[in-house]
């Protein structure tokens, strides 16, 4: 389907899920969140799928929140914001707890929620052309529903820096702090993905599923209460004067009040 925002390609046990809104750098809005969730739900039920690869079409992996979506959110009540944040929280949880191994193929920029998607995958591979940023605070927002997964991946120390400064960092730094496992030149990214996928397919499918559950249980996967709490935090902030000012200033391409 040409206009599908999340096309699925399947061959020989490997399902490749592609974020496909290249004109907006695969930013996510309510429609893409729903569609990606559906695709992942379907894959989770299939016993023939041994590995899921998450990729992005076009120049970027994912720019995070979509502008039009943010514009709609700006008029939301706190209750609408909560429903919205909860849907994104469910998507992150869905990806994090896929029964089979997942691989993120990060070929370009991953910003905000895009970093969350990377953190939710079991193995993250990036091109040297990739760049990362947790840019939420610059809009007066917080990296709320992705934080359990991002902190799980990079730890509180790196989170305290990059969630607060919103600095951009490259693939080498992403690897150093644990967000991505390995980095390849752009031309070699697919070969690296194939190496990892092939390695995963050598494991017993049930052993892999149980090993993943083991890792999540031992490592302390985010509880339902924590996931709900993070959604409430962002809903509250989005409806606050600073959150509205930050998003409005961004949409109007001007500096927010606190930068003046």
């Amino acid at each position, binding site marked *: 389907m040409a206009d599908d925002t999340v096309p699925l390609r399947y061959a020989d046990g490997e399902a490749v899920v592609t974020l496909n809104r290249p004109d907006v750098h695969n930013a996510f809005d309510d429609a893409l969140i729903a569609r990606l969730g559906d695709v992942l739900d379907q894959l989770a039920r299939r016993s023939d799928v041994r590995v899921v690869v998450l990729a992005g079409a076009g120049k970027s992996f994912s720019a995070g929140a979509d502008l039009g979506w943010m514009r709609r959110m700006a008029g939301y009540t706190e209750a609408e914001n909560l429903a919205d944040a909860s849907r994104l929280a469910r998507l992150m949880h869905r990806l994090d707890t896929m029964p089979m191994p997942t691989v993120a193929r990060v070929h370009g920029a991953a910003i905000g929620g895009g970093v969350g998607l990377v953190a939710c995958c079991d193995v993250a591979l990036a091109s040297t052309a990739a760049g990362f940023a947790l840019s939420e605070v610059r809009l007066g927002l917080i990296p709320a529903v992705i934080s359990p997964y991002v902190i799980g991946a990079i730890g*509180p120390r790196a989170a305290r820096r990059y969630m607060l400064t919103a600095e951009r960092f490259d693939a080498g730094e992403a690897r150093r702090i644990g967000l991505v496992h390995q980095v390849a030149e752009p031309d070699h990214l697919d070969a690296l993905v194939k190496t990892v996928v092939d390695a995963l397919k050598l494991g017993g499918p049930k052993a892999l599923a149980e090993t993943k559950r083991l890792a999540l249980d031992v490592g302390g996967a985010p509880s339902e209460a924590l996931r709900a709490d993070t959604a409430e935090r962002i809903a509250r902030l989005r409806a606050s004067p600073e959150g509205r000012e930050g998003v409005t200033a961004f949409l109007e391409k001007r500096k927010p009040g*606190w930068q003046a």
Partner: protein
Amino acid sequence: MTDEPIILSAIDGRGVATVTLNRPAIHNAYNGALIDELTAALGALSSDSHLRALVLRANGKNFSAGADLGWLRRAADFTPAENLDFSLRTTRAVKALAELRVPTVVAVHGACFGGGVGLVAACDIALASEDASFALTEVRVGVLPAPIAPALDAAIGTRQVRRYALTAERFDAAEARRIGLIHDVVPREALESRTQDIVAALLLGGPQALAETKALIFAVAALALDDRQVESLARWAAERRASDEAREGLGAFLGKRAPAWVRERAT
């Protein structure tokens, strides 16, 4: 001796506070008075609604020698209540720095030992110059890094705490960065400008969003200490400091001799 304050604290028009350890003659070692002044400075700043970020730095050749061991040896002879009170004040000071509502940046140069490492770990973003070196030296004098242990564990992880708090080995800025204690290492002459770059990045964030992001990280990673944990850590540190082994270790250090447990092994 002049009455120069041992903690300098200032806040600029942007709301950026600078707190400076200022006991350079003894490498910014801390005693009860320095801890109290640090706590007072943090308290005054945190009640200032204009506060947006805090920079912690040190005057003199070294960042911090950790606890003032001469003072610590005297503390070992305090009454149990006074001894516990000092550990409580230290633990609360580290907690106050770690949980300050605004982002904190620390700029480390020279040596940073013992409790000084805890101050670094308590800050959100840590920069060091290439000449910086670090060590968790407590066990060498028979005492316990209890007040700083939670901040250390959050910064470098249990794996690294098990090595460096037990071996008390000295490590350099590059190793400090590798284990996560330090975020960036820069040449000494670039330390101040790099610190200001980080501050400039922080000032682009929404003040409320920054405070809530910091609170979010503390909630998700369960970093905040409650009163019971503070009391338990302080009690542990105080009991250890009053032990015979710690008296021997501190006494040996001050007498510039090896402690009994080293001499025993050497003979």
